[in-house]
Structures are given as structure tokens and as C-alpha cells.
């Protein structure tokens, strides 16, 4: 059905896809794995000739025997969506924000003159029909992704390409979306090409797996076999990067750490209007301890973190840091904030694109009027974050750095103030598999060398297994379970923890 022959794509002199050969038969499911910049999305976009004009495409892209590259524009438009459709990453901006989703689903049907009803399509992705009248911003991430799937199926294509369909969704929602996709592919005998940086997601969904690295297809085979016996070192690195819960090899935190409390949260409640976002939470982080706060999106974990940092006033309850209640205002609050630093999920948006690394890292020093030589403090922080030698990076702008390097800059910006607690909100969620491991290792090393405690907020139980000493599970504003990593993740006592663990895709 789909056949790529010697496909190469260049941007100027840069070759982003290099001589790729792939075939996909009807009813077959193929996973295309690789890190950002590996060329996997470029391959997907080339199938419907959606690459920007600056791209130069060589080789053949045969869709049912017909070469997409040489089609007339009219023929190409007819093939788009009716012959093959794409499930874009719906949590991002793949839906028009000012149009009702029902209209957006109906649009290709009207355009291609195919029969079908929005109601029926929504039913197939398990959404109630009244959601057709909703605008994208009124839907959750999972619902938007279902809308994308419904839209992709609107014209009854034989091939569906799913580009990172579950990235940015939490584990439970991801599992639901994957289930819907799997069911529909099986029911309708569709060909599915699924693109992801997450091998475990592909392992859940696809029979076949192809791995891309720097534009080349380095490995292809049955999913189980590729993952069990990777032949190419890059595949091996990808499989190793995703922690398996319960596997001692993936448990990087040194065990056996008992600590006196640094941060204590007692009976903390936060209300948004009538909504109780955080409900009577007790939580402790010891000196030098790493605690993972896990839960789905909307469970209140981010609100809890913001309240701990003094960015939000609690409705009731106390936050105690280093034996003293956290001040609510004034100089004392500022001094407290210096000791507790925040690391956000997406370094690209956390960094000001026009500030050099030096300016970004030094900003905290200036805000807090830290005495001493700025240059040496910035250099030390940047080197602590493993950007060595610092002189190489100090004058770079964020866009000149890779995602992993950007996250190190964010961490350096926190370290420069010599904090005692790091609050990290999904610190590795937007990073590639190989980089992710490096950042995890960095956080652990900072703990070892500087005694830095961390509160890691994540929906990723694998990360908790890798890095944390203790885990607290949050659900609907409450901490439903907390304890040591082994105890919570291997012998969960609460149903919700068990549900979370079940939703984790298994490699």
C-alpha cells in the first residue's frame, strides 16, 4: 500500500532523510522510532507531500503504486485525507482554535464528497456527540487527540499516519487513546504508521518497528524482536533509556537514605474559587532527599508545587521549610525563594530566546543582589550543570543549543543561587530518550555532591523509579499513597496507584 524507495530529503545541503526504504501493507502496523532530528516526522510529512517548499525530495513515494512526488496538485489534493490521513499531535495546535471541532471533522467529508456523520465518528472515538459543538480549548488533551483521530478517519482512508499522537498526554489518557487507535485500526483493517520517540508506546501498538537515526533507517523488524535483541547500538540506547519499573538496573538512586525534614507540608488546602485543587495534603522532603510527586494532569500536583514555592496562597495549612514557616510576603519570602528553585518542563519556553546563557544564569544573582564575583559564580553553576567548559556556552543563545543543553542552562540558573531544594516540574518530559538519562544522572549527581534535595513532579512513573527515594501519589487533590519507591511502585496499596501502573506501556 505504501512503499518508500530510496527516499532522501534535503534542506539546502543538510540531508535530513537518507535513502530510506520502507513498505507497509494494508492492515499492518508500523512504528517509526527515533529522537528529535532523526528525520522520522519528515518521512511522515513526505508521504502527503506536506514538507515546506525548501525541502528537496528524492526517490519514490508510492501510495497504492502511484508516486506522490510526481502527482499533479489536483490529484494530490484528492489523495490527501481520502487515501491517507494523518493524526497530528492534537494536544498541540493542530486544531484550528476558532472553529468548532465538529466543523473541522466535517470539513474533509464535504471537501472530498464522502459520506459519513460527525456524530458517528465521535461515537467511534468514544466521545459524546455534543462535543462536536465544542471549541478545541474546551476539550482536554485526550479529547482533542480523539477529535484528531475522528478527523483522520472521516474520509475512510486506507492508511493512517499518527505523528506523536500521545506525546504530552499523561499515562492514563495515553493508554485510553492508544486503545481507541488500536481498536479502530483492527476493526477497519487500516494500515497504520505510527511515529514516536517513545519505544514503549510503539511496542504497545505496532507489530513492526523501524528505528531511525540521523536520517537513516538503522533497524527494522518485528517489534518484540527489535526490542529484545537490538542489533544497532542506537536501538539499544533507545530501549535502555526508558526505565522499566521494577528493574534494579534502571534504579539509579542510591538506596538507604534517611534524612531529617527540610520541607514539611502540613494539612495544606488550596481552593480555586469553588474547586478544591489541593485537599489536606501532608508531604515531607528530607535534606538531600528526592521525592517524586506523581499523578495525572489535573490531579493538583502543579498547584501544590506552586503553593510550596510561595507563588500561591494556601486556603489553609502550613508549609514549613528548614524548621520555620514559609513567609507569605516581603524580604523573607524572597530569601526563601532563593533557597527553593524551580525547573520547568519545556526549557525552550522557560528561557528568554534573546538572553545569552550568561544573562539567563546571572539573572537570579541580580534579582537577589548576591554579593561576590558574578562571572565566577555563573561559570561554576554552568559547569555544575555539566556544560563544560563554561566559556564555550556562556555567550550562546538558547536556539543554538540542543534541548538537553537548554535544560542544563535552566538547571544552572537554579544552581547559581545555591538552593537547597529543587522543584522540578516534568524535568525530562520534553527531552529525547538519550538526553533524558543524562539529565536524570545530573540531578542525582547534584544531590550527591551538593546535598541538593528535589521534589520531582511527574506523571512518568518510570522516572520516579529511576530517580526518587520516595513517591507520593496524588489523585483529585489528595495524596492517596506515599512511601518508599519500592513500596509504592512494586506493592501499591491504593487502587489509583495500581491503575496508574497498569496504564504504563510495557516494552
Amino acid at each position, binding site marked *: 500500500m505504501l512503499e518508500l524507495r530510496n527516499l532522501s530529503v534535503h534542506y539546502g545541503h543538510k540531508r535530513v532523510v537518507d535513502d530510506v526504504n520502507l513498505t507497509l501493507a494494508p492492515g499492518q502496523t508500523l512504528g517509526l522510532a527515533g529522537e528529535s532530528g532523526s528525520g522520522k516526522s519528515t518521512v511522515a510529512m513526505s508521504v502527503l507531500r506536506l514538507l515546506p517548499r525548501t525541502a528537496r525530495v528524492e526517490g519514490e513515494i508510492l501510495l497504492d503504486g502511484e508516486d506522490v512526488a510526481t502527482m499533479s496538485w489536483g490529484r494530490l489534493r484528492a489523495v490527501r485525507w481520502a487515501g491517507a490521513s494523518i493524526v497530528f499531535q492534537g494536544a498541540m495546535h493542530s486544531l484550528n482554535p476558532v472553529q468548532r471541532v465538529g466543523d473541522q471533522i466535517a470539513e474533509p467529508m464535504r471537501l472530498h464528497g464522502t459520506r459519513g456523520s460527525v456524530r458517528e465518528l465521535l461515537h467511534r472515538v468514544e466521545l459524546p456527540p455534543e462535543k462536536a459543538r465544542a471549541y478545541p*480549548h474546551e476539550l482536554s488533551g485526550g479529547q482533542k487527540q480523539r477529535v484528531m483521530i475522528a478527523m483522520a478517519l472521516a474520509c475512510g482512508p486506507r492508511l493512517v499516519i499518527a505523528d506523536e499522537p500521545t506525546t504530552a498526554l499523561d499515562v492514563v489518557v495515553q493508554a485510553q487513546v492508544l486503545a481507541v487507535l488500536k481498536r479502530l485500526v483492527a476493526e477497519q483493517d487500516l494500515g497504520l504508521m505510527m511515529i514516536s520517540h517513545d519505544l514503549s508506546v510503539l511496542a504497545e501498538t505496532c507489530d513492526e518497528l523501524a528505528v531511525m537515526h540521523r536520517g537513516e533507517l538503522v533497524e527494522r523488524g518485528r517489534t518484540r524482536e527489535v526490542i529484545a535483541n537490538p542489533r544497532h547500538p542506537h536501538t539499544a540506547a533507545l530501549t535502555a533509556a526508558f526505565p522499566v519499573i521494577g528493574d534494579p538496573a534502571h534504579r539509579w538512586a542510591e538506596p538507604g537514605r534517611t534524612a531529617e525534614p527540610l520541607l514539611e507540608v502540613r494539612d495544606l488546602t488550596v481552593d480555586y474559587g469553588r474547586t478544591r485543587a489541593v485537599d489536606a495534603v501532608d508531604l515531607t522532603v528530607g535534606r538531600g532527599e528526592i521525592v517524586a510527586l506523581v499523578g495525572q494532569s489535573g490531579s493538583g500536583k502543579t498547584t501544590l508545587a506552586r503553593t510550596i514555592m510561595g507563588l500561591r496562597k494556601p486556603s489553609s495549612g502550613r508549609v514549613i521549610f528548614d524548621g520555620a514557616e514559609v513567609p507569605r510576603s516581603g524580604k523573607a519570602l524572597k530569601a526563601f525563594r532563593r533557597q527553593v528553585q524551580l525547573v520547568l518542563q519545556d526549557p525552550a519556553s522557560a528561557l528568554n530566546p534573546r538572553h545569552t546563557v550568561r544573562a539567563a544564569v546571572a539573572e537570579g544573582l541580580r534579582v537577589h543582589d548576591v554579593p561576590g564575583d558574578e562571572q565566577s559564580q555563573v561559570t561554576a553553576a554552568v559547569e555544575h550543570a555539566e556544560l563544560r567548559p563554561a566559556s564555550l556556552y556562556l555567550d550562546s543563545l538558547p536556539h543554538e543549543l540542543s534541548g538537553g543543553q537548554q535544560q542544563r542552562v535552566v538547571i544552572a540558573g537554579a544552581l547559581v543561587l545555591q538552593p537547597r531544594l529543587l522543584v522540578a516540574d516534568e524535568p525530562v518530559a520534553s527531552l529525547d530518550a538519550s538526553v533524558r538519562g543524562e539529565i536524570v544522572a545530573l540531578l542525582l549527581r547534584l544531590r550527591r555532591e551538593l546535598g541538593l534535595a528535589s521534589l520531582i513532579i511527574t506523571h512518568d512513573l518510570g522516572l520516579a523509579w529511576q530517580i526518587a527515594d520516595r513517591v507520593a501519589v496524588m489523585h483529585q487533590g489528595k495524596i492517596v499513597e506515599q512511601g518508599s519507591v519500592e513500596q509504592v511502585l512494586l506493592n501499591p496499596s491504593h487502587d489509583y496507584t495500581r491503575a496508574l501502573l497498569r496504564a504504563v506501556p510495557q516494552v
Partner: protein
Amino acid sequence: MRLASRLGGAALSLVMVAVLGFFLFRVVPGDPVVSMTRGRPTTAAMQAELRAQFGLDRPLHEQFWGYFTSLLRGDLGTSFTFRRPVSDVILERLGPTLLLVGTSTVIAVGLGLWLGVLAAWRRDSAFDRTTTGVSLTLWAVPTFWLGMLLMMVTGDLFPSRGMRDTDTAPDFLSQALDVGHHLVLPSLTLVAVVCAEYLLVMRSSLLEEMHAPYLTTARAKGLRDDLVRRRHAVPNAVLPAITLVFLRFGLVVAGAITTETVFSWPGLGLLFYDALTGPDYFLLQGLLVVTAGAVVVMNLLAELLYGVLDPRVKVV
């Protein structure tokens, strides 16, 4: 609830405008009566009489209260120069201004947004470079200079002074044609000067949307390029331009001081000019209240319209 707060905000702004209108011209140094009678021989008794006539001899708070209460009744005081109620003078000039500035603004907005869309869609093409370059040049050129240049270039083709000729037949059609004829040069000047504003805002706003993922979705669905633009890109890109357009509509009432002066167009802009040269304090005060009020009202309308066009903004 949100609507109420928006309305309340607008009402508060209007009150501020009224207060500002009063005190702005009171803190300006100089005695209004002295400047009003400048160049004419006056006695202290005549000045005192004038003061009494315009209520300037009363304490400031009484003056303000009198001004504020009559404002609420729609009474803006009496003009020094015209010796007539300010509201009558303003109303009389409102029509010509709405005609000139209203027409030009509608044309400039339409043309600017349309050219902006085309320029962004064909970024860096000859079309983009030419339209952007030409409109920027016109934007940079002084208005009076452009007006005079147009007068010279077109020669006797179009009238260059006033709004109508005295010898035109009194029937509606001839009058309308005459006014239309007079309208050509001043409105052309205005369109040429302000068009760039909308063009540039629309262009940059659309350029920002050009790489939005939902446009890739639309293309992948098989939509023709112009449909991708019309149905998906423009409805999103036009949003930032809305506020600008409505602020501009609010300023329509302020007239176009330079253009109206150059072409002797009997509108509010020319009235502003005359009131400033007077200076006619009550007239200036009245003009300020009316024009600022129009901006506040239009801004409110823009916010309400925004709520209709962008579902993410909940106004009502």
C-alpha cells in the same frame, strides 16, 4: 458578570475623560478670558462681565459641578468663538467628518487587511516587497505634503477646497455628486497615509500563523491553498488587527486635523484646529470629551466583538 465589569470599566473611563477634559484646560497657564480677548481693546469691567457670563468667577469645584451636571444632560457649554452651544457646533461638523474619515477608514482597513494577507501569503515575493515598501513610504510621508502633492498632480481634475460648491443645483443627486467629487482628494490622502498600519499588522500577524500546525492539518485534508488561507489562517490572524481597527474607528470622530486643514474640509478636525488657535476652552473641552468618549465606546465594542470572533475569550 464579565459583561457588567466591561461596561463598568467603560463607564469609569468616560467619567475619567470628563474629569480630565475639565481640569486639563484649567491647569494650562494663562487666563482664558485674557487670551479670548487678546488683540482687542478690553476694560477690566468687560473682562469681569465675560468671566461672569462663562461662570469663570465661581470657585473651581462649583464650576466643575456645573460642568459635570450639564455634561450629563448633554450640555457642553458655550463656545467663546461661535457664541453658540458647543454641542451644536460639534454636531454640525460631525457629519462631514464621519463622511470623510469614515469612508477613508473603511477603505483603508479593507485595503490594508487584504493587501496584508496577500503580502504575508507570498512573503518576500515582488508583490510583498512592493506593497509593503510603497505603503511604508506613504505612511512616512507628511500628510500635508502628500495632500498638497496630490492637489498639484491632479491639477483641476478634483476640487481641493471645502465640501461642496455654492453654485451646485439643490437636488439630492447633484449635491451628492458634488460632495463625492470634493471627497476624492482628501480621502485618497487619508487612505494612502493610514493603509500601511493595517497592512503591516495583518501581514505580521498572518506570518506568525503561517507555521501554525493547524494549517498543516488543513493542507493534509486536501484543501486548496486559498481555502487554507481563507478558512483557517485569516480568521485566526485577523484577531490582533481587530483592536487596532476599532481604536481607529473611535478616532474617526476626532477627524483628521491635518487633512481637513489642508483641504479646508468643514469637519471636526478643522474645528479642533480653529479651537486651538482661538483658543476656545469650552470648545476644546467639548471636543476632548466627545472624541475620547468615542474611543472608549469603540474599544468596548472591540472587546465585545472579540468575544464573538475568538471563542477562547469569554466576554458575555
